[in-house]
């Protein structure tokens, strides 16, 4: 009975929360409620087809609809998608193979710079002929190319370091990410490859090849309105492909080999699992996801500089994987959603609220402590700047109280 009732109830919930988000376009809470429908969808007992129809309804129809009403929601959704893709990539390395990669952002940076350099006039600085930026359709070629480049860098880094003990590997990957960042930061001389700390812009966006189709249906949408929707669907597509690939890999020989290595490397080797080759493969797959997402990120941002690829970013993605549950695909997505919303909406909202209080000069009266005028609140105190504290708390609390994460992988649940 619940198999029929639950989807209907959920449908009611979805339409209700969606309506709420439309009626209160500034409300973070309404958006959160709407986002939560996907989580509920994961939990309810229903046929897989029903579930995927409902998911498609939310992601393909309602989310873009909300996005056209309030562009900020779409921006948040795109960010969530990008981080979800990164978290899924790191999930393979940390969750499946059990290698702690603290420099994951390096591969992301490599992908982003790959497109940024050739998709902007930057490449003219070292390749004569003035043939840059490349035409927009090259974006898709680079998206595919970046998978190979990412995998290759993963293998090149992995080959020497994968024989190391786990915690050494963590520090080496961290060091590698810092080397990559230092390189992009400083390679504006002797040859100007990356334009250094000033960053690269403008980066070419992907082509609007479907414009004729839209015009055929009589839809006139300005570029400014169309691009966010376009990127939303691109990100959605990439995330779906990554989920599909990850699921196929997980239940294949390769996935089982990875998990065997994670559980006991020596036993896995004794059973004939080619440990180093499998580790390398995991490293390369994770890296290729990250670098493909990097291409997308560069095209979406139009401007990138080394600041976007700091150690913080790696830890943020790690926090997402840990929060959701290492080795769990829905977990990684949930983690990415949670951490991104926390960063983009809750902390920023708190900052704005505090600023408002500060300017209003409200007086706080506390028993025993006397009164305190909020206009005295130091201006340096801004919750939006405390991402590190959030990440730190997530990591420690999860490790102490729930190391398996919020949504641990199903197979482990059964044990």
């Amino acid at each position, binding site marked *: 009975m619940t198999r029929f009732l639950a989807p209907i109830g959920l449908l009611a919930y979805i339409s209700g929360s969606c309506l709420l988000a439309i009626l209160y376009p500034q409300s973070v809470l309404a958006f959160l409620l709407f986002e939560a429908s996907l989580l509920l969808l994961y939990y309810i007992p229903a046929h897989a087809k029903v579930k995927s129809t409902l998911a498609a309804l939310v992601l393909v129809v309602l989310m873009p609809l909300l996005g056209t009403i309030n562009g900020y929601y779409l921006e948040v959704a795109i960010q969530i998608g990008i981080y979800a893709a990164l978290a899924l990539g790191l999930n393979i390395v940390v969750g499946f193979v059990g290698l702690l990669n603290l420099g994951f952002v390096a591969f992301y940076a490599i992908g982003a710079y790959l497109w940024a350099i050739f998709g902007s006039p930057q490449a003219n600085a070292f390749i004569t002929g003035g043939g840059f930026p490349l035409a927009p359709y090259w974006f898709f070629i680079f998206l595919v190319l970046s998978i190979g480049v990412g995998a290759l860098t993963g293998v090149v880094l992995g080959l020497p370091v994968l024989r190391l003990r786990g915690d050494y590997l963590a*520090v080496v990957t961290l060091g*590698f990410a*810092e080397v990559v960042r*230092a390189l992009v930061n400083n390679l504006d001389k002797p040859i100007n490859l990356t334009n250094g700390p000033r960053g690269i812009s403008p980066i070419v966006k992907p082509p609007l090849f479907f414009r004729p189709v839209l015009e055929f249906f009589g839809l006139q949408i300005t570029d400014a309105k169309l691009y966010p929707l376009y990127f939303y669907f691109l990100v959605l597509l990439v995330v779906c492909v990554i989920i599909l690939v990850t699921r196929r890999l997980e239940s294949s020989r390769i996935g089982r080999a990875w998990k065997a290595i994670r559980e006991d490397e020596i036993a896995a080797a004794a059973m004939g699992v080619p440990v180093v080759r499998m580790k390398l493969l995991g490293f390369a797959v994770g890296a290729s996801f990250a670098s493909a997402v990097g291409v997308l990120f560069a095209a979406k941002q139009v401007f990138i500089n080394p600041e976007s690829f700091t150690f913080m970013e790696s830890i943020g993605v790690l926090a997402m994987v840990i929060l959701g549950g290492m080795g769990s695909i829905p977990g990684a997505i949930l983690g990415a959603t949670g951490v991104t919303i926390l960063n983009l909406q809750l902390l920023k909202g708190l900052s704005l609220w505090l600023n408002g209080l500060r300017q209003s000069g409200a007086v706080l009266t506390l028993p025993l402590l006397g009164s305190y005028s909020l206009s005295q609140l130091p*201006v340096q105190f801004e919750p939006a700047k*405390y991402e*590190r*504290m959030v990440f730190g708390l997530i990591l420690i609390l999860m*490790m102490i109280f729930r190391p398996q994460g919020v949504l641990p992988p199903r197979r482990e649940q059964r044990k």
Partner: protein
Amino acid sequence: MDLALEILPQVLVEGIVLGFMYALIALGYTMVYGVLEFINFAHSEIFVLGAFVGVEILLMLQSAGLLAVVHPAAVLLLIILAAMVVSGLAAMALERIAYRPLQGSPRLVALISAIGASFLLQDGLRLFESLWRNTFYLTYPTLDFLDRTVPLAANVVVPVKSILVVVTALVMLWGLNLFVNRTRIGAAIRAVAQDPDTASLMGVPVNRVIATTFFVGGAMGGLAGVLFGLHYSLVNPYSGFFPGLKAFTAAVLGGIGNIPGAMLGGMVLGMLEALAASYLSLATDGAFGAEYKDVFAFTALILILIFRPKGLLGEKVREDRA
């Protein structure tokens, strides 16, 4: 080439100072690795905490008008001791809160918790200073006698603060050596590092020994923090990241778990970095400059791990879990 020779003594002095700084921080990493077999990622924040304790005390003395009155040696002694005690206690608290509950779980779990602790401490310090002073970039007040210079040779002048770093570090390293090798508690630390289960059977209170190790390592880190602050004068909650990472590199370079190794590794890395910072630009005609010194240090780490993963003096960790 003349220029290269001319600056060499100055570069060497800089390298020695850096080297002792790294050595002091590296001790914290290596001692903890010895007893617990994990990287205390938050050690760099313990180091920064020391630097902040130093600057806070100096600023308070300054605003009380005492800085000019009290004998500078007394001031130095006060801030060094305070920083060592605070950092040591903070390291102990860290162990109690973030690491001890995780004993027996996989090593990755403890490492992730340590990374979390590192981030939490960075922003915790920032939060405190933001509320307390409305800025978290602090500058050490100038102590006149520290900026005086001592001529060593014809064209070599050494600032007093560099001498201070070297002398303090030497005294502390000597003291630590005595502590680890000549005292009962030192023997207990070595026993736990070798085999915690057997040590526990022999009546060594393992948890207390681990706490002591954290205290001693933290105190060394705090000392390094004060010296860092006195020498470079600018500190912020995030300034521990690079020194910490390099000190860890130094610990690995010397052989993790190996106390003389950490000292040697620190010296080698400090020298390497000072040489790279000064000569890279000369050697490449300005194409690559001092900004590549960090790249140098990390490349060194990667190369060491590939070619000599047990470090220069060999690592001292137990084999069972490795």
